[in-house]
């Protein structure tokens, strides 16, 4: 009897889950943009969502091949009094439930960033769908525009942006990456300020760019084959407009924009106070031990940079030294890599002295990058390196005296950078090409 009752009870579970969300009723967000705007004199929040267009219904009949919907991403935005309110207000124009679990990036508008990002991070932290590995970026201008820009290589901007940021430390190390967890950590930890990549818009200058000649906003062509199929099946005038096979000239849209990640936003507390350029970004990446690969151009016996060094590994150790006359951070950077450019064979690597001299120049460049970054951040009162946190960990007693005033203390801190990079090889050629 009990077994029967239990069986019936268990049967109830098979009906499905209370919290089920079907894919065709979801609005799957891939990127979230948050802006602060003023409307009718009142501050409002504008939340923009770049969503994935989910396929509804079965494959279309006829033709044999599955034709994908023309659009893979679209932006919808809504405003409200708080971020959650605005995000919920998207329901006013969308029948689908907003699902943020696949959001790959959160874009914060410049104005929002200047006025404080604490509530954005808090919103994302509290939201149980948004994950801690979601990238966080600040964009120049409004986040809405940033979301509307077109991806060049990937199917969605979110994918492109997050891959760019994730690959940065390995390839160039010029932009300080930050995910949601890093932001929460930076905001909560005394003696550590936040930094995140800067996303900025770019109209591609190349005439052949897929952005300029592609179909209308948000639409991504899916390769030659399907275009040919479409062209063969449909002969509408609209299709001819956007069909790239009919000639690049006909479909030029120079006003369309893509985006790039070209700098680092620096925060003091939760407010945006300035930007780091690429070189300063590299210095920051060295000090914070995030750099894993990149370029150091340098000038060898020449007024202008004429050689380039690619480092393939880098590590750093930072040691706070507290003495009578202040705090000094001794930063030791080590790395190895190869010479990748050598104009007119200026450097003769067969000579020990030339190698040593080149290494010294590389080290000087790396040190300068670090010093530039430190000087810039000191002028902004933003300790994005976590120097304060290091003191806290190394000498908690001393930290108790200065912890509260760290942002005022930080600009007076001395940072001594010593770099030691080694040239391990020269690529696949020995001496450089000599023009005769």
């Amino acid at each position, binding site marked *: 009897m009990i077994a029967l009752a239990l069986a019936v009870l268990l049967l109830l579970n098979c009906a499905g889950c209370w919290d089920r969300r079907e894919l065709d009723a979801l609005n799957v967000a891939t990127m979230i943009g948050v802006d602060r705007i003023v409307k009718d004199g009142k501050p409002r929040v504008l939340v923009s969502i770049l969503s994935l267009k989910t396929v509804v219904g079965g494959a279309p009949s006829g033709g044999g091949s599955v034709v994908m919907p023309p659009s893979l991403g679209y932006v919808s935005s809504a405003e409200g009094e708080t971020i959650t309110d605005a995000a919920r207000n998207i329901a006013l124009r969308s029948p689908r439930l907003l699902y943020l679990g696949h959001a790959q990036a959160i874009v914060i508008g410049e104005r929002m960033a200047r006025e404080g990002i604490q509530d954005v991070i808090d919103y994302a932290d509290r939201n149980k769908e948004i994950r801690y*590995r979601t990238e966080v970026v600040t964009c120049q201008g409004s986040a809405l525009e940033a979301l509307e820009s077109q991806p060049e290589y990937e199917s969605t901007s979110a994918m492109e942006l997050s891959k760019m940021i994730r690959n940065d430390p390995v390839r160039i190390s010029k932009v300080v990456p930050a995910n949601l967890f890093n932001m929460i950590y930076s905001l909560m*930890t005394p003696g550590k300020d936040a930094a995140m990549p800067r996303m900025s818009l770019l109209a591609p200058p190349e005439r052949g760019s897929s952005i300029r000649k592609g179909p209308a906003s948000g639409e991504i062509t899916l390769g030659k084959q399907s275009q040919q199929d479409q062209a063969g099946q449909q002969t509408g005038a609209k299709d001819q407009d956007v069909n790239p096979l009919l000639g690049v000239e006909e479909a030029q849209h120079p006003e369309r924009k893509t985006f790039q990640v070209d700098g680092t936003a620096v925060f003091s507390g939760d407010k945006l106070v300035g930007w780091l350029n690429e070189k300063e970004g590299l210095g920051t990446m060295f000090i914070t031990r995030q750099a894993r690969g990149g370029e150091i151009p340098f000038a060898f016996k020449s007024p202008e940079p004429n050689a380039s060094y690619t480092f393939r590994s880098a590590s750093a150790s930072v040691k706070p030294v507290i003495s009578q006359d202040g705090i000094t951070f001794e930063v030791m950077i080590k790395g190895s890599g190869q010479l990748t450019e050598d104009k007119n064979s200026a450097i003769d690597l067969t000579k020990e002295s030339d190698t040593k001299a080149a290494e010294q120049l590389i080290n000087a460049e790396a040190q300068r990058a670090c010093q530039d970054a430190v000087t810039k951040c000191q002028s902004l009162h933003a300790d994005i390196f976590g120097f304060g946190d290091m003191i806290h960990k190394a000498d908690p007693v001393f930290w108790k005296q200065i912890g509260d005033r760290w942002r005022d203390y930080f600009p007076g801190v001395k940072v001594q950078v010593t770099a030691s990079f080694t040239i391990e090889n020269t690529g696949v050629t020995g001496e450089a090409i000599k023009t005769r």
Partner: protein
Amino acid sequence: MLDKGRISSVQLLLIICMLDGATGIFFLASEVAKIAGPDSWISVSILPSLYGLLVAGVVIALAKRFPYKVFTEYLPDVVGKIPGKLLAAVYTLSFIFVASVILNEGTTFINAAFMPRTPLSVFDVMLAVVAIYGAYLGIECIARENELIFSLFMISILLTLALVTTDINLNNLKPVFENGILPAIKAAPMICPLRGYVFFILMLYPYLNQKQEAAKVALLFLLIYTVYPVWAMLTIVGLLGGQVTGHLVFPYLVLARYISVGNFLDRMEILIAVIWIAGVFMKLAVFYHSAAIAAANTLGLRSYRATLLPIAIITVIISRTLFPTILKLTTFLSQTYPIYALIGELAIPALILLIALIRKRM
């Protein structure tokens, strides 16, 4: 002895391990980190285990005097009929109370973390019904079920902890003893009740087939649970830092969500659901079983099964009224529960042992 089941010493060990491991790390990691910060791993190790050792000593000495009776059964023999029955009633109520706390923990977590729309009572009833069925079938069934479930439980825990190892930043564990050793000690009592679950040897001793191994079980349990929570806490705080760990409600869930190995092994939080459902279910079943036995002893019934259904209904009803919000629950677990546990797990058994010793002399 109302339950005729027999369990082996390994099964006993696994049951106690399950009682400790199931809910503690989820609800208390954050509370411990709030007080102890980077020193949390020290809080969860030595001190609670010493307390556990104390409880184990008392409990095993007491259990050896009455090897064929359950704790609540011989209370009247030791302290007299009326006080004994009263104490047994107190234990019955405590078991029911703790069972409802566990039920509340279980459903609150699922609700907050995974299924916010499903009414809590649905989870309450579903969990309670399954656990009650386990208790109905007896301790032998629970022990065997636990053998199966504990392995799943442990594999999931080890997997989640191991997969974030590469993301750990050991600097997060510094500074050690920033405000002296006191915060680390202050946070320790919250973990004590968990180690004190070794008390359940008293309720399970009669079923044990090799009674001489009880002490070994207790020691092994304490050994395992001096190492495992330290590892878990080192991982959580090493990954998230003391500040963020204290700020989160379920740091362990965030830890599992943070797993990302090689860009393809991620979104592992479903393992947490596995750990959670398994742990809460087993814990509930054991508590229901003990509550039913204690109730039957108090009332002098010949079968404990009759009391199961009322107990289940009571727990489902009071679990919601006791702690309407998750913050009240965590506050209770971190501040009030240690005191209750100290009385129930250590003070009363120690008193009973003392009286039993004195009466033997007389």
